[in-house]
């Protein structure tokens, strides 16, 4: 008989944050303080906040890049920037917004919220979670170091060969991008795995798969999508790096390679990625809107299915980025039709949101305004996408400002608006304080008006034939006045973002204290304190419906969720593992404590990529050794971490 516990029937008890058991929990779950704690934490809430803050910093950097470009384009024949500076700016703007802001900010929400929404005490793999953040941070820094040296990536975020081949782009610029993207791909992949396993294993007892919030469906779908999509782009960038550094010819037409192969690999990744950076944001709205409409979401099941089917279809549409490449008309017509079909799941979501507002009783908070404004922007970004899905129309629209308008309606309309609304919604949970509502409403209107004034005219510029990625344009093409309006509108939008940032800082210090559930929300995160204790829940909640905190008020049968009474699990860091579909309690999961292994592995990986970039093979070799050692330290079997049967 070993001294290691292999079986235990977990105690079911009633407890609150003031109970004796909660003091024990606090001691178990709290890591060391100070810098040591900061560097070694595996707490999903800490990691989630870091993701959010880091992503917002990148949003601001990307925004400043855009502001400089808009100054250059405000009038014909401006000379503020050299062509090369402009190329680096539009490339880094795209890379930053798409890779370093849009997905990471959603990972921030999901990291912070998933265990709270699911009634768990952490993510399935807390250390992997830490690694995912560190690698994201280091790849962002990696990409930006070259920018400060004046040799940032300069071939646009989709980096078409052969302009990105060594013959035409001999500097370090593209190597930085190639290696940075492979590094970032590691972060995305481990993060995706963590979300998937967490969903399958860490839901509160009773939270069957048809009771999880829509945000969970969104992030789950995005994670599965990323798991299949990221390998394509990592491979493509690795092949490009081989072409550039070791003379392979994957993309080199003069040696039998195929430039179009790059486009296929990139967009096989790129289009699913677009859904990965909007579906969780749509989930934020699908979960937030009902709270402010005082009713459950209309059509939970169709919306969940629409989320999944959008991603499934999203894997079959990549060629709509390549309609003008000379592919046979039969082939592109298939992709055209597949792209148009995505309108159907999208319309399910739109009518669900409208019906939720119509049949609900809206409370006009700042968060609600952002969610409702989002619905209109979603539709505008959607119909412009539908236009570009039609091959013949796209042959004119592609590579013009119409596309720039479309993609900003998608990325700002469907990502930034829900994200800002989501911050207004969950800020009290994150910090214990409410954000200022008056300033919030001003923020909404400034952002909404600024955005539409700044970005709607881009559609018309595109129809007036203005190509994307031009650093200047001649007089006499008729593009001047609208470009000036675009610049002024986008600056107004930037002021809106600034108001939001001011609101965050002011509210952190002076915001009104929020109780556990300031909006009378229905999901589990509102049942715990604001901000939540380090162990999330004093007892593991038990769930009996989709809206645990509204049960008394919805006539949904007699089963009741329980947030005050449940599994106590106060013997160290523990949470409950449940079955994949029905969420029946299965095992007690022992969760790891603070550790430096993820940080060490992250640093080693970053150094490995620096070594590859500099062709410093000894540095690369040393980094490989250290990352192996860090992995061994990480994976070293600990009896204390073995699961306990219940």
């Amino acid at each position, binding site marked *: 008989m070993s001294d290691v516990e292999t079986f235990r029937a977990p105690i079911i008890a009633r407890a609150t944050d003031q109970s004796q058991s909660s003091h024990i929990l606090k001691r178990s779950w709290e890591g060391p303080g100070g810098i040591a704690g900061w560097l070694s934490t595996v707490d999903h809430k800490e990691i989630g906040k870091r993701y959010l803050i880091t992503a917002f910093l990148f949003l601001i950097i990307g925004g400043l890049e855009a502001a400089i470009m808009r100054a250059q384009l405000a009038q014909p024949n401006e000379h503020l920037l050299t062509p090369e500076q402009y190329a680096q700016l539009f490339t880094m703007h795209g890379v930053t917004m798409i890779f370093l802001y849009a997905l990471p900010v959603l990972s921030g929400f999901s990291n912070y919220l998933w265990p709270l929404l699911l009634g768990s005490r952490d993510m399935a793999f807390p250390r992997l979670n830490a690694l995912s953040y560190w690698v994201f941070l280091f790849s962002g820094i990696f990409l930006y170091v070259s920018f400060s040296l004046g040799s940032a990536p300069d071939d646009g975020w989709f980096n078409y060969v052969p302009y990105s081949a060594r013959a035409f782009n001999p500097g370090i610029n593209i190597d930085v991008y190639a290696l940075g993207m492979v590094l970032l791909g590691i972060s995305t992949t481990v993060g995706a795995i963590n979300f998937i396993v967490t969903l399958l294993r860490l839901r509160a007892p009773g939270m069957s798969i048809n009771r999880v919030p829509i945000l969970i469906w969104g992030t789950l779908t995005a994670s599965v999508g990323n798991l299949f999509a990221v390998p394509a782009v990592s491979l493509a960038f690795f092949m490009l790096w081989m072409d550039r550094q070791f003379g392979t010819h994957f993309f080199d037409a003069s040696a039998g390679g195929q430039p179009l192969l790059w486009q296929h690999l990139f967009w096989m990744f790129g289009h699913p990625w677009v859904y990965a950076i909007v579906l969780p944001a749509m989930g934020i709205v699908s979960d937030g809107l009902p709270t402010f409409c005082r009713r459950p979401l209309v059509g939970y099941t169709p919306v969940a299915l629409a989320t999944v089917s959008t991603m499934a279809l999203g894997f079959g549409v990549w060629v709509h980025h390549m309609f003008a490449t*000379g592919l046979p008309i039969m082939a592109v017509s298939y992709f055209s039709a597949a792209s*148009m079909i995505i309108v159907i799941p999208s319309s399910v979501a739109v009518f669900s949101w409208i019906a939720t507002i119509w049949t609900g009783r809206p409370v006009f908070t700042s968060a609600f305004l952002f969610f409702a404004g989002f619905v209109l922007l979603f539709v505008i970004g959607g119909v412009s996408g539908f236009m570009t899905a039609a091959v013949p129309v796209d*042959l004119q629209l592609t590579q013009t400002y119409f596309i720039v308008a479309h993609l900003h309606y998608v990325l700002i309309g469907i990502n930034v608006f829900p994200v800002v609304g989501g911050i207004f919604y969950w800020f009290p949970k994150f910090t214990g304080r409410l954000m200022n509502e008056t300033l919030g409403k001003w923020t909404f209107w400034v952002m909404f008006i600024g955005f539409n004034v700044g970005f709607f005219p881009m559609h018309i510029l595109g129809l007036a034939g203005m190509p994307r990625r031009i650093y200047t344009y001649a007089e006499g093409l008729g593009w001047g006045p609208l470009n000036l309006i675009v610049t002024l509108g986008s600056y107004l939008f930037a002021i809106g973002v600034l108001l939001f940032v001011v609101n965050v800082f002011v509210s952190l210090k002076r915001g009104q204290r929020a109780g556990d559930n300031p909006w009378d929300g229905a999901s589990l995160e509102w049942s715990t304190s604001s901000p939540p204790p380090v162990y999330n829940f004093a007892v593991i909640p038990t769930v009996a419906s989709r809206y645990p905190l509204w049960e008394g008020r919805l006539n949904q049968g007699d089963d009741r969720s329980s947030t005050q009474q449940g599994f106590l699990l106060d013997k160290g860091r523990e949470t409950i593992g449940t079955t994949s579909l029905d969420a029946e309690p299965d095992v007690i999961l022992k969760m790891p404590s603070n550790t430096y292994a993820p940080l060490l592995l992250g640093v080693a990986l970053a150094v490995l990529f620096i070594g590859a970039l500099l062709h410093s093979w000894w540095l690369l070799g040393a980094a490989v050794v250290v990352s192996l050692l860090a992995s061994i330290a990480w994976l070293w079997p600990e009896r204390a971490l073995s699961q306990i049967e219940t």
Partner: protein
Amino acid sequence: MSRSRALVVSALLIGQSGTTYAETPMSYWHTYGPAGYPLTQLGWGLGIISIVVSAVIAVLLLGAMSHERSRAADDTQLAVGREGGGMGWIYIGTGITTVVLIGCMGWTLLTSASVVRPPSTPALTVQVTASQWWWGLMYTSADPSRTFITANEIHVPVGQPVRFEVASADVIHSFWVPQLGGKMDVIPGQTNVTWLQADKPGVYRGQCAEFCGTEHARMALVLIADTPEDFRAWQDDQLRDTPIAASAQARAGQRVFQAHCAVCHTIRGSDAAGIVGPDLSHLMTRRTLAAGLLANTPGNLAGWIADSQSLKPGASMPDHLVSGADLTAVVDYLKTLQ
């Protein structure tokens, strides 16, 4: 363009009232040939459907927020007593959407099929070779003596389809004359084929549409649709060898050209036979210099020769540090290339 469409255009072009073909030469609101008409028609159709859809949703959204409701008894009361309800919105909304969508898909497929091939077999083929950052053009003919090379300025006979075979000398570009039709990407290692037809004589502007490096912004082209007689005359002009430099000044200029320029440029009928840069035979028949960057005037020509790198930084054409006298002479020589 019908009157109502014209109204929509001017309403949308805020601050640009009275848009015309000349004021927005890259605009494809209206096109001038059968490779463009179906695209424009479908574009207008889908565009109007899109605007209507957005407007309907905006009205529904405003209605959803503002319609009369009974007051809540207290803050904790929900708007509904059970989870279901409201599904009719999804059924009806998605149902209507699906019907409209399927119609649009059919229309799209028919339109695609209609522009794949020109209405009649093109009699004329132009081989376009895109380079950073200009367009090489070869007019081919079954009769080799009627094949010739020019650059950046395409002439076509009005009312006839012309076949374009586009290839790249370096990176990816995209061949686009918006008022005549859609884009065709120019991809290294393959020759893509497209066609255009101009139904109205005139000057049509084109521009590279795929990012191709630092001067992508200034890789324009001009397409001129001539009457069949004018086109024939232009073709004959281009086929002639360039005149022998007659004056002493021109002969001096030709020597300078031979020393500094001939390694990259060709002038048919002279010893200059470089193929790196644009063919300059009959340079004076072209309207612009440096792929649409400058009007073709003697002053601009001198400026371009002496100072190309500040006019178009990064272009393969180097600044030529020749003396003032040599510069004048070479410009005088080029002026003879009628």
